[in-house]
């Protein structure tokens, strides 16, 4: 019996990253990548609930949304959009490097992605603190003035929930980037094993796409 077990493990690929439950690395790659796609479906519904609430209230209070939207800084928003699209580019380049087994390239591009992500979050901090200063955070101290003072609270609640949830995903993504930088530093990736970087890429691009929707919906309504 035990010799059979040995045979069974000997049939497995030698790659140290191979997991025992799979038949080969191809199945491992296909399963884990598919797992991330399913996870992203889940994410779409997670954000979908927010988008749904956003749409319902925007249809109900279009003037309040437009008035409140003027209090956002379009310049900073545009800058952040460019930063985030840039980070998606470097992420894609990191995936390419991983597929070619160039660990140094992976490390470099992941680091750039990480820095761009931090720039985005830094700008977000500036924007948030600006809202605090101008009493635009919903709650007892909220004051926007004008005829839509009450309903604008809904807009800003949506603003903080949506961008906050997006920023939380960015922070988690940044943590994952550090982990994968460490893995790349240890020469983990090769032409036969690069799946995790691709999966990281899927996640990062998804978070990017969410922002692509958030930016016009929150900043560009007039």
């Amino acid at each position: 019996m035990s010799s059979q077990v040995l045979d069974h493990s000997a049939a497995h690929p030698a790659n140290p990253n191979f997991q025992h439950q799979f038949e080969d690395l191809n199945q491992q790659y296909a399963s884990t990548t598919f797992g991330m796609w399913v996870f992203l479906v889940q994410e779409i519904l997670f954000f979908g609930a927010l988008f749904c609430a956003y749409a319902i209230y925007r249809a109900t209070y279009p003037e309040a949304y437009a008035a409140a939207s003027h209090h956002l800084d379009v310049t900073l928003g545009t800058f952040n959009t460019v930063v985030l699209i840039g980070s998606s580019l470097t992420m894609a380049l990191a995936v390419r490097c991983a597929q070619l087994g160039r660990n140094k390239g992976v490390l470099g591009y992941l680091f750039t992605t990480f820095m761009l992500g931090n720039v985005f979050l830094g700008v977000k901090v500036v924007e948030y603190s600006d809202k605090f200063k101008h009493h635009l955070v919903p709650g007892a101290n909220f004051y926007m003035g004008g005829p839509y003072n009450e309903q604008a609270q809904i807009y800003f609640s949506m603003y903080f929930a949506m961008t906050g949830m997006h920023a939380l995903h960015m922070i988690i993504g940044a943590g994952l980037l550090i982990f994968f930088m460490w893995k790349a530093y240890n020469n983990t990736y090769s032409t036969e094993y690069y799946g995790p970087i691709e999966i990281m890429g899927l996640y990062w691009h998804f978070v990017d796409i969410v922002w692509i929707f958030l930016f016009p919906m929150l900043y560009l309504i007039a």
Partner: protein
Amino acid sequence: MSSAVNTLPMPENVGESYLTKGKGVMSWLLTKDHKRIALLYLLSITFMSLLGGFFAALIRLELITPGGDLLSAESYNKTFTMHGVIMVFFILIPATPAVLGNFLMPIMIGARDLALPRINLLSWYIYVLGAAFTLFSMLSGGVDTGWTFYTPYSSTYANSAVITAALGAFISGFSSILTGLNFIVTVHKMRAPGMTWFRLPLFVWAHYATALVQILGTPVVAMTILLVALERLFGFSFFNPNTGGDPILFQHMFWFYSHPAVYIMILPAMGVISELVTCFSRKKVFGYSFIAMSSVSIAVIGFIIWGHHMYVSGQSVYAGMVFSILTFIVAIPSAVKVFNWTATLYKGSISYDAPMLYAFGFFGLFLIGGLTGLFCANVAVDLHIHDTYFIVAHFHYIMVGGAIMGYLGGLHFWWPKITGRTYPELAGRISAIFVFLGFNLTFFPQFLLGYLGMPRRYHAYPEEFQILNMMSSAGASVLAIGYTLPMIYFVWSLFAGPKASANPWGAKGLEWTIPSPPPLENFTEIPIVTEEAYAYAPEEAEEHEVKHHV
């Protein structure tokens, strides 16, 4: 503790079994083996069910008398809320998928493990964290909003530990999502050679459909609960009428998940029943593809009928009519299942072992629960019975009578496979009968009470309702005996139960081709599947018959 049985010479598979390979607490807490994770879930779910049962007992004790003698109105509110939160989020939703599904799904499709074992372990830790939050809310004063957390009560007015209880439900949702994700990936990518989609056991189809609901529904309620928490904690406005927010929106978003959640509870149980009915009638299942597709269509239609919870909440009459029609439609795939199981029984060689008694119990209770669901789906009738005990009885017939009967039947059926030990058959049959009778005695009077107009969620009631309420409470104690018995003899069987063979029921399916309990990676060699599911031959049926009567 070790009896003579334990020191007997072992069959050759011993030492390799997943139970004995790896010793000590850490080998369990850090395990990535789907079978051990299933047992971790079994233990924690059993623990939570004792708590949920305790609150149920308090409710039934209070309702023996018309006056509010035992519990004040406030503590009664907290009692039924904790009963609901624990039973829904920590027992009914995870029970069958996380215990039986986790254990059996990879074996049934011929895989060594789920596709993502670390995610599987993570899901258990998330479950425990969610349970810890809920227990903390219980100890820090309890919650009185009802398990539905309706706004603006939950967000503004309730003076109880809403945040921690809601976060407990939020966190446990991610455990459910990860289980569903793992099942979807596993069914797509881990099937053994020859295990085509239409050779999958119906148990796997049911879990696949369940996983779809878990993936597509749970994130929505998670976000909704998070918005309530933001509103309560920071004074944000999402559902607050003072700033123009709409509390009804909360109900829409809540029921968008929480209605399909009923199918997370019942679909896996239906999968169990398909296995039981075929095995104990020794017949190929009638209309395999219809049963498989009915699971998927229940999952899909289940997403567009949530509004039937809101007929009296202020949604338009037109919307109510649409939701009513759609709700009637979901009865069709459910009926397909029941008819096909009945047709499977026809001319079968039926044996009445404990798992099959649970399956028969399921038929009866699910039938009553399903048919009364049609009463509730009718807008005109629902106006009369809404928020009465009729609704309480209806959903207990589905969620307890259906889901828990399936879970217990499955637990009996696969117990020899899971533990390698046989439970005492007579005790199993007795417990099945106790559960069935106790359940009906508990909940049938509640249909009558509801129809007569007794509302839910009050700790006192008019005196003319006392007889029916006493019947219900008496039934609850019979039911409690029925639920306690398996706990006793299952534990007993672990130490003193006779050793089980690889296939004690003579059943079909890959899980019965490997030793009981299974070895660590299930199969020493991945099997090649060459036949359809449930290929019970008529000759075998006769042989089994002979064996049974000798």
